[in-house]
């Protein structure tokens, strides 16, 4: 190994250190043989599991929708979720602001792996997923959107998302905090969220256009 080269985060993972990080989850989640659902669902057998499928736990609609849409827990998706839960699930019930330190996250993931069947067989990361650090750049979050431009662009959205806030089958996007809105759209654009329609819609939106849409939809009353 060459000196001076940054090692990928996963190679440093340390489950013992991870146990300490898990203290930040412990107020809501349990792991281990006697675990049961508390504020959050049991985190045993997490790896390879569809999001939102622990029996008896009442998830948010958004978590259920992402699960049905194909979100599964793997090192890469967990890493993104733990860094900022709203990247993957905008209106999740998990009220947790995230862990920004990548080393803490990989240690925590190593800790959680011990509570899945045959952890040794779990790949460290899906080979297809390259981008890490899904949190949106503060500079992008700071862009002030032009609501008039957003109003024009919104024509493309309201074919599916109702302006009156109806959310039958397709989530409502009116009255959101811009930061959540922008985070969600960048998650589609960067392919952290997999929904094909929204990936396509977000792919051709620039940072300014996303900000403009956020500014417009924020002020639509339901």
């Amino acid at each position, binding site marked *: 190994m060459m000196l001076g080269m940054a090692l990928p985060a996963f190679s440093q993972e340390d489950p013992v250190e991870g146990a300490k990080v898990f203290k930040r989850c412990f107020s809501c989640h349990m792991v281990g043989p006697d675990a049961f659902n508390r504020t959050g669902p049991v985190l045993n057998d997490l790896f390879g599991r569809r999001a939102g499928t622990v029996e008896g736990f009442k998830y948010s609609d958004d978590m259920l929708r992402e699960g*049905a849409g194909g979100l599964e827990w793997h090192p890469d998706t967990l890493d993104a979720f733990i860094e900022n839960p709203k990247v993957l699930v905008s209106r999740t019930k998990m009220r947790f602001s995230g862990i920004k330190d990548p080393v803490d996250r990989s240690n925590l993931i190593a800790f959680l792996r011990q509570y899945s069947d045959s952890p040794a067989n779990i790949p460290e990361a899906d080979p297809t997923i390259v981008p890490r650090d899904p949190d949106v750049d503060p500079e992008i979050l700071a862009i002030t959107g032009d609501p008039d431009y957003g109003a024009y662009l919104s024509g*493309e959205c309201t*074919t*599916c998302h109702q302006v009156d806030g*109806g959310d*039958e*089958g397709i989530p409502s996007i009116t009255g959101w905090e811009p930061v959540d809105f922008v985070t969600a759209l960048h998650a589609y654009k960067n392919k952290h969220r997999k929904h094909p*329609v929204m990936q396509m819609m977000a792919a051709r939106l620039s940072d300014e256009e996303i900000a403009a849409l956020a500014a417009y939809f924020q002020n639509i009353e339901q």
Partner: protein
Amino acid sequence: MKMNRRGFLGAGVATAATLSAPMVLGASHGKPKVVVIGGGAGGATVARYIAKDSDGMIDVTLIEPTRTYYTCFFSNLYIGGFRDFASIGHSYGTLAAEYGINVVHDWAVGVDRDARTVALASGSKVPYDKLIISPGIDFVDGAVPGWDVSAQNAMPHAYKAGSQTQLLKAQIEAMPQGGTFAMVAPPNPYRCPPGPYERVSMVAHVLKDINPTAKILIVDPKPKFSKQGLFEEGWQKHYSGMIERIGPDFGGNNVSVRPGSMEIDIDGEVEKVDVCNVIPAQKAGRIAELAGVTDESGWAPVRPQDMRSRMDENIYVLGDASAQGDMPKSGFSANSQAKVCAMGVRNVLTGSKTFPARYSNTCWSLIDTDDGIKVGASYEATDEKIAKTSGFVSKTGEDAALRKQTYEESVGWYAGITADMFG
């Protein structure tokens, strides 16, 4: 088009209090005037967006003969028993009352491009500064030998929604046990590429339940069709052995019908059937032809930037009737085009801001209960045409949770697009 005299006499004039009698006043008098022919996916959307975004600076008149618009989209789900008929009907009340649009329930029967007036069946004339035509489709005469619109009661097309859809559903439900439902599918291009195959799925869904020994025969002039792999996988899974498709390699492109005896002749082989759904080859709605904005293809060529006719700078053509490039003829496309067009028309008339055109489309289809699929793409305006930039399609082998979610999305989309059209 069913233009009988009785229809005209019956067609009264709109509901709105704001309605001014459509007398000729001479165009460009006072506020700029936009006239929209056809209150469907393209026409209702464009009327609503122009009225909504111009703050009363543009006078919008919408000419549409029917008082209730039945959407073709989800009409197959009505046939399959997933929607009731009333749920696919929409009135123009909100467009008139809340958006101040003059809704005129009449047929447009001619366009005088020099005088810039639209002639109505009632005899009056409506002046315009800009005319937007979104009349949907008509059928090519003689496309299926033996069939013309006078045979549509014996062999319905159900490709314009309404009483035709109800008739087809009733015929399917009245089929004798073990009978045959036949569909004569159209050649490209036609409205809603997956539409005929979604319809077959819905017919199969009904028959499986009430008439499990019945057969479905598709006579198809096209070698391939939209989402074919997905449909065929679904048919195998849900309706195994029920559906037979005769493509052009077995004479599917050489078909004629005899509505009197309920027979179809497929490349010389005569089959007697119980229900025959004939979906003929299509062209732009006739009023586009009468306005002189169609070409030899039967469709109306438009500029990709704003859907303006290539034949007349005061006319725009939307939706199925237009020849624009890569977008499929769908309600989603018509709605998308309408918003770009509304921006362009407002800009020309009032100098409002414009932004580069953006178009997109997604078409969902239902194969069986909770088994939905979709295909979609986004498009941009190039000099030559509306060109596809990227797209996606559902995959074979997807699990049940995803298919159910896809169906639920389509229900959400239906609520969204109809709200976007009718307010």
